[in-house]
């Protein structure tokens, strides 16, 4: 009789492993969301020169727990004219793909749900499924503002998927594998992908901000324009599930960034004691989560036309150029990555330096047109 890990029969071990993994991930998402809400409040408070949560528990640490218990205890309200089944199903449709994408995140050597050979594709696929839930939430609420939020979300997410995937493909070209574990293993020591492909990192991060509906791209739930967008009719735990999904998505995007550009679990002492890779992975991921919060506290929201023109007129041409240049250089110099790195840094510098110049010229042209019209 074959014996699996820990002396357990493999027939029992396979479902048992699934149950353990799902419980771990649910715990991770819930606790991660609690931690992130606390961090978000504190960091926004620091940036806005306030104190933030202070009174519940030491340093206000228990504030989010209190809020979570309040949300759990709230009555489950559904307006009469909403579309019952769609309304009830939408939070799960948003939440479950996010949960499923934790399967391929490489936390440490050997600590990964499943080493799919199309892991990265799997993650982008699941990321693209959230939009379905948001659109349904907006439609089923039977509310103009919700519908607007859902429609904005559909337009935004489908558009930003293009630069997102193009940035990821650039990395895949350099690394030569789609498996998340393979990508993590390809960056030992200081050979981080961000040194080779900084532009792909920047474009992916911008697209990731849009993909998770975070500020400055939080148009689907823009509270000053659309009440709360697709969230307007939701309350209590259903509303909380949308937020859990959003924080989970932020973590997923941050862990993709960590894995693809910042060497995943690699750090000191990992070779001696592999479990410490979880610590490095978490620290790196939460650094990017903090950057998300920093951006939210400092940048104003974009208008919908600015959002679209940023995607279609700036990001997509830029990522396409990057892809073509990287592919060509990889074919011309198959043995070294230095030309790719140089080209990428030059493109990044051009992007950063030219963007304000182009914006100023557009503003001048706009003012000119207004003056002639007046």
């Amino acid at each position, binding site marked *: 009789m074959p014996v699996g890990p820990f002396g357990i029969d493999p*027939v029992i071990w*396979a479902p048992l492993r699934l149950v353990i993994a799902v419980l771990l991930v649910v715990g991770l998402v819930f606790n991660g969301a609690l931690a992130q809400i606390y961090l978000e409040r504190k960091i926004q408070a620091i940036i806005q020169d306030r104190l933030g949560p202070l009174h519940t528990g030491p340093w206000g640490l228990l504030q989010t727990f209190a809020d979570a218990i309040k949300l759990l205890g709230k009555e489950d309200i559904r307006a009469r004219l909403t*579309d019952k089944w*769609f309304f009830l199903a939408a939070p799960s449709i948003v939440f479950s793909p996010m949960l499923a994408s934790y399967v391929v995140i490489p936390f440490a050597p050997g600590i990964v749900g499943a080493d*799919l*050979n*199309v892991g990265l*594709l*799997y993650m*982008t*696929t*699941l990321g*693209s*499924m959230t*939009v*379905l839930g948001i*659109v*349904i939430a*907006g*439609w089923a609420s039977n509310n103009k503002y919700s*519908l607007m939020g*859902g*429609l904005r979300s*559909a*337009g935004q*997410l*489908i558009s930003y*998927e293009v630069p997102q995937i193009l940035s990821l493909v650039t990395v895949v070209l350099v690394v030569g594998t*789609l498996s998340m574990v393979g990508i993590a293993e390809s960056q030992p020591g200081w050979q981080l992908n961000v040194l080779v492909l900084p532009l792909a990192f920047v474009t992916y991060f911008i697209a990731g901000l849009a993909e998770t509906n975070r500020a400055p791209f939080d148009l689907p739930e823009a509270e000053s324009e659309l009440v709360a967008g697709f969230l307007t009719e939701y309350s209590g735990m259903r509303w909380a599930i949308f937020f859990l999904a959003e924080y989970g998505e932020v973590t997923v995007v941050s862990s993709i960034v960590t894995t693809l550009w910042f060497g995943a679990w690699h750090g000191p002492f990992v070779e001696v004691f592999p479990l410490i890779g979880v610590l490095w992975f978490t620290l790196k991921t939460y650094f990017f989560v903090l950057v998300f919060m920093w951006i939210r506290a400092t940048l104003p929201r974009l208008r919908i036309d600015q959002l679209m023109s940023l995607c279609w007129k700036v990001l997509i041409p830029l990522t396409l150029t990057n892809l073509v240049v990287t592919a060509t250089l990889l074919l011309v110099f198959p043995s070294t990555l230095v030309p790719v790195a140089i080209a990428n840094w030059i493109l990044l510098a051009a992007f950063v330096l030219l963007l304000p110049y182009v914006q100023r010229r557009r503003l001048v042209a706009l003012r000119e047109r207004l003056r002639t019209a007046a």
Partner: protein
Amino acid sequence: MLDFIEPALFAILTIAIVAAGAGVVLANRITTSALLMAFTFLNIAGMFVLLGAETIAMFQVLIYVGAITVLILYGVMFTPQSPRAYGLFFQTQKYWAALFVVPIAIFVALVAFSFRDSATLGAKGGDLLPLATSVFRDFAFPFEVASVLLLAAMVGAIVLVKRDEE
């Protein structure tokens, strides 16, 4: 010992695909149809995974669930909802539908049964490499022709919906 899992999964997926497919045609509201269609696509992706074609399964979900269904819902939302029963609307075409579906079904069944005794699938280890070599090397020209066609269609669509600027 675990041999029963694959046929069981196949049975579940088949039932889900056929039932959801029937639901797409029979449902009274077009949004229900769209969502059931997304469900059908998801199950077909599961079928691809069973066949060992994970990459195609991923693209199936990415394009059909993540993009096409969303675009259909997008279109539906801009259309005023009327109390008219869409199911009945579809069912008036049932004779025409039967006329087209039956020959296609017979053809598909014949093709499917002709594969029954052929060699089993390629080795495990993913379909990424065979897919990439066939698309970008063996069939690069047809692939490019198809993409140019799609590009032309896209440009045409943009020209059609573009507002005239004064």
